[in-house]
C-alpha cells in the first residue's frame, strides 16, 4: 500500500466537543414530544373510523328471498376500468337471466366504485372492508359464494 492511498479522516474532524450541542438539541425535541398524546393508533387492536363513502371489497346483494339481485347484464364488467369483473349468464327454466359465474379479481380492482354506479339493480356494492389477506394470489379472485358473504367472511 502506498502512502497516498491512506485517507486521513482525523484531518476533517472539527474541534473537540462540538457534537454536544446538536445532541442536546435532538434530545430536547424528543423530550418535548415524549409527554404528548400519540397520533398513531394501535392497529390492528384499534381501527380508524372510515368515511361514509369509503370503498372496499365488493358484495353481491340479495333480495328479500335471499336470491342474488344480479341479472348478469354485464354493465359493471363493461364499465370497469381495470377489467376486474367476469360474468357469464345463464337462463333458468322461466327464462330469467342469472349469473352463472360472477368473479371479481380484487387484486386488479382499483376500488373506483364504477361498478356500483353502473348497476341497474343495485346488485353490487362496495363494502367498507379494506382488510383482506390470503396466502395465494388466486384466492383474491372472489366468486359468487364469497361475494355473497363478503361481510361475514372478512368482518369476523
Amino acid at each position, binding site marked *: 500500500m502506498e502512502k497516498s492511498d491512506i485517507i486521513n479522516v482525523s484531518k476533517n474532524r472539527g474541534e473537540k466537543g462540538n457534537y454536544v450541542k446538536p445532541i442536546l438539541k435532538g434530545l430536547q425535541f424528543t423530550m418535548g414530544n415524549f409527554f404528548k398524546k400519540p397520533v398513531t393508533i394501535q392497529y390492528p387492536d384499534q381501527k380508524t373510523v372510515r368515511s361514509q363513502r369509503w370503498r372496499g371489497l365488493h358484495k353481491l346483494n340479495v333480495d328479500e328471498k335471499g336470491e342474488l339481485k344480479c341479472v*348478469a347484464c354485464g354493465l359493471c364488467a363493461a364499465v370497469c376500468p381495470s*377489467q376486474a369483473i367476469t360474468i357469464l349468464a345463464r337462463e333458468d327454466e322461466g327464462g330469467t337471466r342469472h349469473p352463472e359465474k360472477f368473479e371479481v379479481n380484487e387484486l386488479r380492482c382499483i376500488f373506483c366504485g364504477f361498478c356500483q354506479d353502473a348497476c341497474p339493480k343495485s346488485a353490487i356494492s362496495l363494502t367498507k372492508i379494506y382488510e383482506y389477506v390470503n396466502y395465494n394470489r388466486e384466492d383474491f379472485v372472489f366468486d359468487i359464494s364469497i361475494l355473497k358473504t363478503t361481510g361475514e367472511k372478512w368482518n369476523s
Partner: protein
Amino acid sequence: MPRLIIDEREIEVPEGTKVIDAAEMLGIVIPRFCYHEALGSVGACRMCAVKFIQGPFKGVQMSCMIEAQDGMVVSTTDQEAVEFRKRVIELLMKNHPLDCPVCDEGGQCLLQDETISGGHAMRRFPGPKRTYRDQYLGPFIKHEMNRCIHCYRCSRFYQEFAGYRDLGPMQIGDRLYFGRFSDGCLESPFSGNLVDICPTGVYTDKTARFKLRRWDLQRAPGLCNQCSLGCNTVANAHYRGVMRMEARFNRDVNGYFLCDAGRFGFSYANGDPGLWRRPLFPKIAGEVAGAADALSAARKALDDIAAKNGPGAVAVVGSQRNSLETQSMMNLVCETRGWLGPVFFFDPAMRLKTLSAVHELDGEIAVSMKQIENADFILVVGADPLNEAPMSAMAIRQAARKKAPVVTIDPRPVSLPCDSQHFAVLPKDIESYLGALILKAMGKDAASLGSESENFRAYLGSQLENFNPPESLDQCARLLAASSKPVIICGTDVTMETTPAFAADCVRLLNLCEKQAGLFNLLPGAGSFGAGLLSRTEVPTFADLVEYIENGRVRGLVFAESDPFHCYPDRARLESALSKLDFFLALDYFPSETARRASVFYPASTIFETGATFLNQEGRAQFASPVHCGGEPIRPGEHPPRVYSGLVPGGDHLPAWKALASIAGMEETCPDIAPEKFVPPSIPGFEALGYPVDGQRPALAKSGFKTQWGLNTFDKSQAPLTFELLMVEWIFGTSEFSAWSDSLAPAVLPPLMSISAKDAVRLGLADKDKVSVELAGGELEIVVSVSDRTAESVLIVPRHNGLEWQKSHDFRVFVSSEKIRKI
C-alpha cells in the same frame, strides 16, 4: 330530379325518393322505427316527424311518407318537430318493460337509441303497463312481446317480403299482438331476419341467448360459405368462438337479409365445450402430435411416394367448399410438383355441369340477385331455389311481388314463396320444355334465326323430336314474349350435363330478339365457381381417382377441406380404396370421417379465423375477413386467462392452403395471399383485382372449355316402371355444414322420399308409408311423401345426413318398381 333543402343544405335526389332517405343522403339520420328501405313506408310509428317549412306540405309531417319535391324546405331540428318526436317516444315507451339489462338486443337497439336521442328519461304515466304472453317460435327465435312498439316491421317482412303467413298481427288497439296463431316453429326459412329487422328486442337470436353482450363482440365483415350465393354477413365472435351471424347489406347480393341456414349454421367453427368436436389437434396415425411434426411427417411420406412411384402417384383432392386461395394453391402445388390434381369434383357429370355453367356465363348475360328482383319473367329450370340457394328464392319473390310470372321446370315438387307455374318433368325433358318455351315465345321458326344459333338449333331440333308440349306452356310462352327482362335460373344438381350451357344459349337467343335476358346459375357449393374456373380438363374426377387407387396408380392422397365420406356414393368401395393407399393426409376444419381415418390430420382454420376469398355463382369475388384467431374453446363458466401474450392457445392453425404449401415444400416460394398473384394467368380478369377483393366481378371471359353437346349420359328410353333415384339437397340436413353445426340440428326434418301421386297409386303407396328401396349397397328405408307436383318415374331422396344414401353406389341410379317395397 327534385331539389330540396334539408337543414339548410341543398340536395338533388332521384324522383320518388322519400324525404327520410334524402336526409340520409346528406348524412342526417331521421329517427324511425317502421320505415325500412326494403319494406317501404307505412307511417305506423310517427317517429320520423320533421317540420316542412316551405313547399307543397306545411308543418310537422312524417318524412317517411312524403316524397321529396322541388322547392321543399325541411327542418329536422325545428323545436316543434323535436317536441313531437319526444312525445312520440314517450308514448311508445309507455308499456315498455325497461328490461334492457337482460335483453340481448341491448347495445344495438334502435329503441334505446331513439329514446336517448329523443330526450325521454322519466316516466310520467302512473298507470299499469300492458303485458303479453310470449310464444314458442322454434329453435332459432326467442319471442318477448312486451318489448313491442307496434311498428309492423316484422309482419311486413314475414308476410309481404318473405311470403310466409304464420306470423302476423292480431287483435287491435292496446292489445295488438305480433306472433303466431298458436305456439310452434316458424315456417319460414328466413325467420332469422326478424332479429335484424325488429327495432326492439321482441325477436332475439335463441342460439346466442344470454351468451354475450353486444359490446363484448369482435365483429368483422364476413361471407356465408354454405351455398354458392355468397351472402354477406357480419360475423360476431367472443371467447374464442363464433357466437352470432348478422346480415351485412350488399345491394347486389343479399340485400339486407340472410337465410336461416346461413345465419345459424356457424357452430361447426366452434369447439363444442363438452365434446371438443371441432378438431384442434394435429394427429399422426390417430395420435395427437405437434403441428410441425404432423406437417413434416406428411411432407416426408408424400415425398417418399413421389420418389418411389413418380409424382403422379400423389393426388390432391378438394371439394366444393374450398376457398379461392386453397384452390389456387392446390393448382400451383400440382403444377410445380407434378402431383395429380387438383380434383375438385366427385361426380363427373357435376363437373361437366359446373364447368359449362361457369364458362358459358359471360358478363353480358350474368345477372345479380338484385337484377332478379327487377326481372319481369322468371324461368327456373332444374333448380330448387329454396333448397339449393335459399336467398335466391327471396329474390324471385320480390320479382313476383312486382307481377313477374314465375315458371319452374323441374322433377322436384319445387315450392317457392310466391305463385308459380310448375312443370314436373324428368331431368331429360327439361331441355325440351325450355327449348320449346323459348321458341314459342320468340314467335318465329327456329330456322329464321341467324347463323349465331346454328349449333343450338341443331341440338334443339334433336331434343324437340316427338315432343308435344302441354297447353299451359303456350300461355307461359306468351308471358315470356311480353317480357323485356326475363331471367333464367338454372340449377346444376339434377339437370343433364348440357343443360347449363343450353340455358345460357337460350338466354343469348332471347337477347337476339331484343330482350335483356339474364342467366343466374345455382352451383353446388360456395367454391364451385372457382373450382370450375381452375379445373383443368386433363384432371380426373374423384370417381376416376378411385379406380386409379384400386389399380395402384395413385398411392398417396391429400384431402384439402374435402370429405369423400360425405360426397362419394359408394361407402364400401371408398373404404377399401382408402385402405389400399400408402398414405393420405386430411386438412380440414370438420371432424369428418376422412379426418378420423387419415394417416396424418392437420386441423385447418375456418374462414372466421384466417379469412378467405370466394367467387359466388355469378363470378363475384368477395373476401371474408377474419373475425378472431380461434383457439381452444372456452368451456361454460370459464374465462380466458388474462395474460399478455400474442398467441391464443390453439389459435395458430394455418389455413388449408398454407398447410398445403408447407407440405409441398413451397413455403418459401409460396406467393403472398393475393389472387392476382396466384390465380393462374390462364384465367383472365384477376390481374387488376388487388387484395382483399370486395364484390368485384372479374371479367367473365370464355376460356378453352367447350360444352360437349350430346354427352348426356341420360338414357332417354327409360324402361317403363323404372324410377330414377334423384339425390337432392335440402336447406337443412344435407350439407356438411349442417352435419357439423349443432345449432342447425333442431331444424333438420327427417328424410322423406318424394314421389308423384300417379306413381304412388301404381306402387300401391300412400303418403307417410315407410318403404324399403333395394339398392346396390343394401336396403334404404325411408318414409314416402306423395306430391302431385313431383314428376313421374323419379324417386326424390335428399342426401340427408341421417340417411345412408351412400348405399346407392353410383351418382346415377335407376330402380325398378319391384325393388320398392312397403314395410
